[in-house]
């Protein structure tokens, strides 16, 4: 049982003291966005020139928002911590981007994409937002093609699609295994165009250190020039955070090394509520951990599940032999293999949503069927795909009675054309040849559905502070479907935020430039300098990574794929203690001046050490299983997630009150007017 007294958690009856206003427009679901766009206030072009907007982060959401806002006429100041906006971690997205185009004529529609996304999110997302996302998804593809994004095409010259987990249509547009790269470079090119016009002032190698709130409104940021070490004050009429997700709280994740929560966390501490922080996506197909020095995990695109089959040995003695290296997977007979996803979920098989696939892998490995030295890996096997594609190819080529060898060879060529770069990457990292032996995969932290709470306009609870892309909580509920993150990032940045922000900025046309030397700015700057000084002057003995690793272990073990009240309570205490130790014993080399990545890392880890605690608290309070959040206390007899819709059909939005564990819960009730809540079934 949870120790709610100690943790000052509101009791069930207390949940709902304060209901958040999502500002969803009235009217039928399908008309809400159109009507809203027609009714919100606009800022005329002459006035837009008088207004400054800060955009933090240059991934899909940030780049597209900055480019669009600049195009509309606002003066945009864009910030990224990388050496170029093109390197934001959206670049690493592999599989694809969803859009309800129905080019494949398989019955897809805006409604189906909407429905699949809400269902995939296990009914914990806001209907109106998701429907809007599905609506604008179509424009994204048009826009990107117009920008010269080289999506994969068929021989007829038209766009190709592939299918992804959790859906029964083919609606994913892709560019080999580098869709995120191509989309980001598209947004980056739009951004570059505005930089060349002087409409965007780009600040590379700058990290946002603090939000500045003046008279209750977000009016700027404190940023650190990472190269010179200088702390700078930047003012604007509104601030957009598109700073990505916080999966790095687990230390090992598929995120980039620099990905962090700091921008969002600083906003949280300045009054922005953090929503559903415990909703983390653990991606089922990553390359397993190989050693303690490991710095990050590499994803193998979910698209591999299209054609690959996932299995473990059916006999535990075989699994043991495989772990010892005395048995090779290819030597295990077909009847001795357990294709557990196909067994458990015949309707969706290997294409169940990510949360389901990940848990199923963990279940098998926990039972002792794991296939690498650590016991934490399952097979992703392409042997049958080689055969299937090979036969088709042999037919196409008109070969009569081709040998099995020939069929496999032809099949491998087809697979190489589709997934060659992923296979190469696997081989590069593991030194195993995936064309000859099944790949080993295991789930890893990949994406965070939680984030800053935003209303329908993407505004946080701090007026004038917006959040877009993975940084907000909005569209994916408790689990994100594959190929939807890219869709959401670009939808927010290109097609939603640039319109909705006008409604707020319409009040600012006579405000004039925001001074950056007001007391609020000076105070925020001083606070940032204090934090940095405290870190650099700390004469501890352990490197930052030491603490980060330990935080990651606590999070993975207690707030990972399966959680329970007891572990979560324990984790909250452990994180709190670790944070204390961090400030006592961390060693940050170098000086405040100049380029000092260790100092920057320390500041980020300090924030992650607070966030982790809130995540555990959120997970503790949500006494149900939904999507990526699986509470062991709440499962069906078959071990499937058990949602508790009566009590938990709401968004948890946490208000900062000093210590993370003292955060106060506000809730936004989720109303489903167009979709009937069902227990998800992929059987």
């Amino acid at each position, binding site marked *: 049982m949870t120790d709610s007294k100690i943790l000052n958690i509101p009791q069930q009856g207390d949940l709902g003291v304060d209901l958040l206003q999502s500002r969803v427009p009235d009217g039928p679901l399908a008309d809400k966005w159109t009507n809203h766009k027609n009714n919100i206030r606009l800022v005329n072009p002459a006035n837009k020139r008088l207004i400054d907007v800060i955009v933090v982060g240059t991934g899909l959401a940030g780049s597209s928002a900055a480019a669009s806002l600049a195009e509309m006429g606002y003066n945009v100041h864009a910030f990224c911590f990388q050496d*170029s906006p093109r390197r934001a971690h959206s670049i690493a997205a592999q599989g694809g981007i969803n859009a309800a185009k129905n080019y494949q004529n398989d019955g897809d529609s805006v409604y189906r994409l909407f429905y699949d996304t809400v269902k995939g999110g296990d009914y914990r997302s806001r209907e109106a937002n998701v429907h809007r996302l599905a609506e604008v998804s179509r424009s994204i593809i048009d826009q990107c093609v117009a*920008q010269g994004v080289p*999506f994969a095409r068929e021989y007829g010259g038209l766009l190709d699609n592939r299918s992804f987990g959790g859906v029964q249509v083919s609606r994913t547009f892709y560019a080999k295994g580098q869709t995120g790269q191509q989309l980001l470079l598209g947004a980056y090119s739009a951004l570059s165009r505005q930089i060349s016009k002087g409409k965007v002032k780009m600040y590379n190698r700058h990290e946002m250190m603090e939000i500045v709130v003046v008279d209750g409104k977000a009016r700027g940021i404190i940023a650190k020039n990472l190269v010179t070490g200088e702390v700078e004050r930047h003012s604007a009429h509104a601030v957009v955070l598109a700073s990505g997700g916080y999966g790095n709280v687990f230390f090992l994740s598929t995120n980039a090394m620099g990905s962090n929560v700091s921008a969002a966390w600083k906003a949280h501490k300045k009054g922005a509520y953090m929503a559903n922080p415990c909703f983390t996506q653990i991606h089922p197909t990553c390359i397993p951990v190989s050693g303690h020095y490991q710095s990050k995990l590499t994803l193998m695109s979910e698209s591999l599940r299209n054609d690959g089959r996932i299995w473990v040995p059916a006999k535990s003695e075989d699994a043991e032999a495989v772990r010892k290296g005395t048995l090779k997977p290819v030597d295990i007979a077909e009847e001795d293999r357990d294709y557990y996803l196909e067994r458990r979920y015949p309707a969706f098989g290997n294409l169940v949503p990510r949360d389901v696939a990940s848990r199923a892998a963990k279940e098998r490995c926990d039972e002792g069927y794991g296939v690498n030295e650590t016991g934490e890996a399952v097979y992703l096997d392409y042997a049958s795909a080689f055969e299937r594609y090979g036969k088709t190819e042999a037919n196409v080529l008109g070969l009569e009675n081709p040998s099995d060898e020939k069929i496999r060879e032809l099949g491998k060529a087809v697979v190489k054309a589709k997934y060659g770069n992923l296979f190469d990457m696997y081989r590069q990292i593991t030194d195993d040849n995936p064309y000859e032996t099944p790949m080993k995969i295991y789930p890893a932290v990949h994406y965070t559905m939680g984030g800053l709470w935003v209303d329908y306009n993407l505004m946080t609870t701090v007026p004038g502070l917006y959040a877009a892309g993975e940084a907000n909580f909005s569209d994916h509920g408790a689990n994100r479907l594959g190929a939807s993150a890219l869709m959401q990032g670009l939808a927010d940045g290109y097609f939603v935020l640039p319109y909705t922000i006008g409604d707020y900025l319409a009040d600012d046309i006579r405000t004039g430039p925001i001074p950056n030397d007001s007391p609020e700015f000076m105070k925020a700057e001083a606070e940032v300098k204090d934090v940095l000084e405290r870190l650099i002057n700390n004469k501890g003995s352990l490197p930052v990574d030491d603490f980060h690793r330990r935080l990651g272990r606590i999070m993975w073990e207690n707030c990972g794929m399966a959680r329970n009240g007891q572990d979560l309570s324990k984790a909250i205490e452990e994180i709190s203690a670790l944070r204390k130790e961090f400030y006592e014993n961390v*060693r940050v080399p170098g000086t405040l001046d100049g380029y000092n990545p260790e100092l920057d890392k320390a500041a980020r880890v300090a924030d992650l050490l607070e966030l982790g605690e809130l995540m555990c608290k959120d997970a503790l309070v949500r006494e149900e299983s939904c999507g990526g959040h699986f509470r062991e206390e709440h499962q069906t007899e078959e071990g499937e997630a058990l949602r508790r819709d009566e009590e938990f059909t709401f968004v948890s939005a946490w208000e900062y009150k000093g210590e993370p564990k003292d955060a106060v819960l506000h809730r936004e009730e989720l109303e489903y007017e167009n979709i009937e809540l069902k227990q998800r079934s992929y059987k």
Partner: protein
Amino acid sequence: MDLTLKVWRQDGPTEKGRLDTHQLSGVTGDMSFLEMMDVLNDNIIREGGDPVVFDHDCREGICGMCSMFINGQAHGPGRGVTTCQLHMRSFKDGDTITIEPWRATAFPVVKDLTVDRGAFDRVIQAGGYVSVNTSGETLDANTIPIAKADADEAFNAATCIGCGACVATCKNASAMLFVSAKVSQFALLPQGQPERKRRVTRMVDQMDKEGFGNCTNTGACSVECPKGIDLTNIARMNRDYLNASIKGE
């Protein structure tokens, strides 16, 4: 395995640099090159020293941030990989590894192994885009069919990660492979045609202004390119530039 590392240390763009020697033991073949560097830095910090500064981010070979010149080669031995994907199994026990930053006038050293590749951004800003507003009110994506071969070739050019290995490798520090990849991507697509001539002239002009060297067709860039960008792109840019020069923008 035990290694001797000779690492370039430089405090700033105008300071003089030097090669420092470090001994490192306990390195395993499954470590990536950057994880080996992490171990080195961990040791340095624990001993109270200043860790080696190097650029890195995604560590899966796509962001283009990592940039080390290892034993005389951009991104080290091996083809088709970035530094982050290079694994220590490519080295042997007892090896000496020399690690240097990208060296080019256009890529000034920021610190140690980190360089400033802002020149690449400015080249893109000079014209590496299609001038279309982001309203979403464009043609339906399937209105203009594009032959698969052209789309695929445009994609191949577009896979450039902007890491700068081409510049680092080229004995002349030329950026032709990078620039031509972007020029080619748009030259191959119908969407890129209206600005084709203007784009190539502006981007080449900016490239020259940045102080990159001239291409002498050694082909080293393409060999060392982690994404295998082809020399055909350079030829295409040469052709397009000539065409633009003769006919005007």
